């Protein structure tokens, strides 16, 4: 895919995710599982996932951008895309965001599952949040140690 086409797809997806008519669909969901079922049908999601890690990276960028991340519904969409198309660095970024307590409500579960998937860690659904919190702490500590050694 040409760079221009990928850029255009990302622009289209972010524009859609920012549309209240789109992101309010997520707020209608009563569970993380149903939220995922809903998100997979939203405009822009399939287009971003089809880009692979590049699309996942665009979603990960949304989670790090306070403008978008402050909206729980947009964050839900971004987490789903990252889970489906994990980019390099997803594990470390999500570990940092989880240890910073950035996710709440339905997103607690979505972030836990996305992080565990990117880290290659298996967990029962009902234990995902606790497992992710523990593993995120460990990975965040490793990342900080590594950065300190390099400094």
């Amino acid at each position: 895919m040409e760079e221009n086409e990928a850029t255009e797809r990302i622009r289209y997806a972010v524009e859609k995710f920012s549309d209240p008519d789109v992101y309010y669909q997520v707020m209608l969901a009563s569970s993380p599982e149903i939220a995922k079922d809903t998100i997979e049908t939203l405009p822009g999601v399939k287009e971003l996932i089809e880009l692979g890690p590049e699309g996942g990276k665009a979603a990960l960028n949304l989670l790090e951008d306070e403008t978008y991340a402050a909206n729980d519904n947009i964050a839900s969409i971004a987490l789903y895309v990252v889970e489906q198309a994990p980019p390099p660095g997803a594990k470390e970024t999500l570990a940092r965001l989880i240890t910073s307590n950035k996710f709440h409500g339905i997103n607690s579960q979505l972030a836990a599952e996305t992080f565990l998937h990117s880290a290659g860690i298996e967990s029962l659904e009902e234990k995902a949040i606790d497992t992710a919190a523990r593993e995120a702490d460990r990975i965040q500590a490793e990342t900080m140690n590594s950065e300190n050694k390099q400094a």
Partner: protein
Amino acid sequence: MPILRTSQGRSVQHCHVPNSPCQPQEVTAAQIAAASVWLTKNFPNTKEISPASYRINCHGYAYAEIHGGWFNYAKFFNDDDYSVVPFNSPQPGDIVSYINHRGRIAHSAVVDRVSNGQITRLRSKWGGMPAVFHELTDVPASYGNPEILRRQNPVNQPA
């Protein structure tokens, strides 16, 4: 994690704001107003009962309204305390399960009015959005179709 048990003694997992994994705070006033605008625009035939809130979701509203809370699943309630009844014999208080494109229960709604054997009005809480009165199929497409009707089992009375 708070405990609510079915008649068979099974604990049904749920949470209450502000305790994890629920939201740490309620929906803001601005979000409440925006949600009402969205509802009026997209579902003009519904009538809002209560504003957007993270304190209760559809399953909590349908199966545990007095207790409140956010329930991810209705399975234990359905298995232990409710029975499936024919869709052509609804009664007020019955619960309709909506099945989505993945075959999962995406929504629960309480039958509010019945006329000539037909459900004419339901009430339900739309996730974190408002609770509304609505017609059977006047719901978000993501909820899927109304496929199962359930009725609460009679409570055993002491002899």
